[in-house]
């Protein structure tokens, strides 16, 4: 009986909050509903439990368990994974366990707190630790000789707020036998990239290079094969690279003053920055670099008297190139006008002190979204705090995906730059051309959508996704579903939506229309009118299928 109870208690009670903040999971291990008898406050209790491997169930000896009852207290688990804290006063405390080689949560963004109640009728606590994954391998050249000192990068793919993100999952360089080993890998999807690297032949003084290769033989991320790494899994990733000649690039950057700050970088075809550095100097305003053959974008950013100037030059390299000339032009500044129009039939919704419009909306631009070198730009209020203006500054030329948000009770009715509808299209910023100001219109006659998820059998819904049917990714919203299957979303822009309820949001790229389209046959279609309060019932969709 105690064993069964312990298992029951270790099942997660999950509460997901969907907002711009990371999910918070509270794992409760005690029967919270149980009324604590009015015990003598002098009574002391003993908390015991064990730490186990979440995959094998094997006990983990010498894990460190920490509680926060009064003062912080620590204990090691013994050889059979058991721990015990004695002399505890009744109350509730957080408890956690750690050990090198294990994770307590699947992702660092999960702010998981495991709480335990100390008092009479305490059950043993079981804490799960997730074993790390390891990626290792061997890299050799075309002659079968190991390549030493080559950078190897693990690229993690993860889905956050319905969007795919790639980020570094660790890097190493190969040892003298051409081997690498990267541990500390959480369960998930990973690409492995070997190179690019240069090898200086010290005998001849010449450089040879290795182009980047994504496992197993792809030259860019999009055609590479990711590894699905489960908890505790070790995978072998071997590469064979061929040395290629390097070519010399040189030229000048038009600089206004010799000591202007200059940043020079090369992007490859997939928009990633190369590890080959671009040398600046020795003469003022001159640069040189050595690269492998290929297509590159040469990116120049320079600062003159605090202002950013930038230039981008497309380079197709298959021989030495000299006399490259980069003339940076001033980076872009785009003023933003925010108009708040009270359109609600129930009168102005604005409460409290009248806030300047610039504080009601936020606008976020991303270049190369979803790649390793995603750059983000956020408009900042400037000038008089009582009457600020909103400006996006120092934007280099490029294409940006735009996200506009409004604080309640407002919603974004429209966001435009010239003829570009920023709720549906990307913003293109071109060198030498003034980008039209951005105009954001906010309304407060948003609709409320509430309802119930048709709970089927044993699968529990966790969240609803509300997607405008015109396919815009940035306006997709989500909300959590209560234990009883209820949900409510407020401040929604009037319009046509597809509503879906999912059992599992983890890893679901719901902000990607291509991914969401697969589920649309199960969606509930709804048209929301201004100020409407609408109730619907939504079918449950299994995200895994």
């Amino acid at each position: 009986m105690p064993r069964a109870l312990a298992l029951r208690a270790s099942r997660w009670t999950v509460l997901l909050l969907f907002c711009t903040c990371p999910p918070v999971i509270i794992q409760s291990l005690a029967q919270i509903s149980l009324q604590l008898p009015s015990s003598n406050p002098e009574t002391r209790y003993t908390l015991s439990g064990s730490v186990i491997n979440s995959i094998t169930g094997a006990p983990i000896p010498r894990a460190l368990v920490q509680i926060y009852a009064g003062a912080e207290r620590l204990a090691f688990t013994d050889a059979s994974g058991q721990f015990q804290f004695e002399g505890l006063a009744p109350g509730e405390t957080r408890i956690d366990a750690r050990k090198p080689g294990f994770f307590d949560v699947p992702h660092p963004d999960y702010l998981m707190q495991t709480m335990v109640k100390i008092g009479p009728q305490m059950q043993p606590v079981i804490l799960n630790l997730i074993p790390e994954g390891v990626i290792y391998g061997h890299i050799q050249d075309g002659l079968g000789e190991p390549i030493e000192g080559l950078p190897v990068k693990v690229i993690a793919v993860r889905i956050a707020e319905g969007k795919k993100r790639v980020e570094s999952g660790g890097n190493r360089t190969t040892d003298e036998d051409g081997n690498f080993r990267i541990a500390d890998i959480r369960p998930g999807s990973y690409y492995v990239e070997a190179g690019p690297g240069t090898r200086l032949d010290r005998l001849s003084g010449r450089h040879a290079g290795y182009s980047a290769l994504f496992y197993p033989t792809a030259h860019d991320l999009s055609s590479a094969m990711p590894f699905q790494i489960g908890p505790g899994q070790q995978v072998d990733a071997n590469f064979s690279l061929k040395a290629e000649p390097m070519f010399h690039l040189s030229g000048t950057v038009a600089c206004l003053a010799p000591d202007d700050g200059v940043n020079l970088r090369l992007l490859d075809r997939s928009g990633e920055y190369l590890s080959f550095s671009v040398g600046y100097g020795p003469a003022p305003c001159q640069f040189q670099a050595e690269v492998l053959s290929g297509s590159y974008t040469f990116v120049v950013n320079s600062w003159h008297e605090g202002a950013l100037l930038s230039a981008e030059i497309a380079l197709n390299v298959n021989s030495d190139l000299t006399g490259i000339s980069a003339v940076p032009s001033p980076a872009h500044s785009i003023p933003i006008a925010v108009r708040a129009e009270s359109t609600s039939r129930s009168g102005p919704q604005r409460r409290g002190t009248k806030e300047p419009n610039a504080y009601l909306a936020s606008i976020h631009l991303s270049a190369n979204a979803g790649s390793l070198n995603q750059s983000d730009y956020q408009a900042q209020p400037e000038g008089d705090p009582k009457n600020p203006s909103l400006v996006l500054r120092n934007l280099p030329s490029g294409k940006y995906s735009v996200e506009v948000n409004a604080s309640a009770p407002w919603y974004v009715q429209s966001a435009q730059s010239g003829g570009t509808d920023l709720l549906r299209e990307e913003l293109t910023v071109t060198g030498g051309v003034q980008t039209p100001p951005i105009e954001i219109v906010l309304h407060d006659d948003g609709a409320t959508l509430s309802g119930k998820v048709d709970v089927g059998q044993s699968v529990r819904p966790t969240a609803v996704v509300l997607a405008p049917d015109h396919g815009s990714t940035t306006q997709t919203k989500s909300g959590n579903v209560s234990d009883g299957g209820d949900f409510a979303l407020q401040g929604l822009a009037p319009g046509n939506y597809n509503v879906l309820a999912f059992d599992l949001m983890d890893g679901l790229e719901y902000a990607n229309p291509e991914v969401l389209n697969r589920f649309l046959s199960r969606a509930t279609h709804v048209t929301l009118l201004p100020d409407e309060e609408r109730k619907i019932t939504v079918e449950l969709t299994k995200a895994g299928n």
Partner: protein
Amino acid sequence: MSLLRILFVIVLPLAALSQQQNLPSRPTQQPFRIIGTVVNAIDGQPLSNAAVSIGPAERDDQVQTMTTAEDGRFEFQNLNPGKYWLAAQRRGFSLQRLDEHEYFSTAIAVGPNLESEGLVFRLRPDAAISGTVTDEQNEAVRGAQAMLFSAALEEGKSATQIRGRAMTDDRGSYHFGHLTPGTYFVAVSAQPWYAEMRQARRQIVFTDGNASTDQSSNETELQQSEFDVTYPVTYYASTTDRTGATPLVLKAGERASADISLVAIPALRMHIVDASIDPSQGAGVFLTQRLFGNSVEQIPAQTTSIKKGEIEISGVPPGQFVLTFQNFGKSPSSREKEIEVSNDAEVDVANASVAPTIQGVVQLDGGRPMSHRALVRLWNRASGETLGAQVSGKGEFEIRDNNAKPGRYEISVFNVRGALLKSVSATGAQVVGHTVEISSGTSVRLSLTMSSGVGRVNGTALRDSKGYAGAMIVLVPQDLQNDSTLIRRDQSDSDGTFSLQNVLPGRYTLVAIENGWNLEWLNLPALQPYLMNGEMVDVSARGKYNVKVKVQ
């Protein structure tokens, strides 16, 4: 020949070096060749697939490279008369020049009546050290820092220096590759993964609303001590005493293993009291430990500012440390104190030593303007530490180094074309030859006078009246004790010739020593027996000499 030239590119004007060199003349069809075999230095077996290069000595261009076949043979034809350096490398054999010692090697002289065929290039296979770091429960310690030290002759005296650092991986493994034969030590610095510093503990209040006061009674404090621990720096084979470290004597090609187990010991806490500690003005206190020779390692302890005038350092192992104490305020200052920590201690830094201030002026002959690239270097021969400063156009310099320690320093000046430091005088310190004795907290003013011109000593090392290759050539100044920076060295080339440049005018003794590469030449008693059979040379400014010297 000397490879020092390559190092000197930074510190000496190139023009001074490239005068009067035996450059090959214009390319015409020449009958001269360099032919030889690359063999494994261990077993003498020919090495295939080795890359062999040659190039004119004293130049970096005109490099020719070839790869050896099964028989290890290499051949370069149609060479102009002159001297050529020779280098080779192969997988498992790091790049080496012919008969390489420190930054010297034997160049091959090519020309009429010179032997440049039938060479045997003995390539030394690399050695390696790897091992595993485990803790007191025999579990792997990941992220520990392994440090490799080698005991070798360094600038003419025996010294143990740090050679590399490596981080242990998830299995606790570390690896140091591409090592030359020699004597090594391994040390590990790490913190227990579970260590909780006493200061880091937070007070967490019960959620039942009782703002429960500290429940960490004495009993709790005792229980906690299991986690208030640290690892002292631990040497192979698992000792915390440097003098008990086991040397790893590696032969060429040897792969040694050195596992180290760490034992956590109770961490100590130091309470530092000093009126001048003012965190708002920026103050830093850190602990360093002297490992081998000149290498110091910062102790990964935790520093907590308590209030004005008080700082606490927790997580400290017992041992001998240097406590460095820095103020970054309006008048930055630095003080040091040697301390022995054996229990939780109060430390008073009042009588700590204060960094000296050193400034001065460099005078060029005839009042010529100073090169703005000129550098002054002070070298503490005993500790190996150096201080440096750039010289202004007016010839002034100031050493702004808060860590400057009192001691005996030998002075040199670099990057002044055709001139070397001739004489030193000082106020606030005693001077003998090129050496100045600096005391704690003093203010020293140096006056440095440069020579007008430098000399050059060329020559031939002879045995039985024939040129002798691979001898160590040393040009020894009269006052070796105080003017050791004036020593010049080279290795004789295949025809026995050598060249010593940038010689300060004065009287020297020239010696050629067979198998001299293990000699502590900076040590007068070690060099003394050779001096009486050496050749006396009086060098004048811009003088050029050609000396024949017998190999001893």
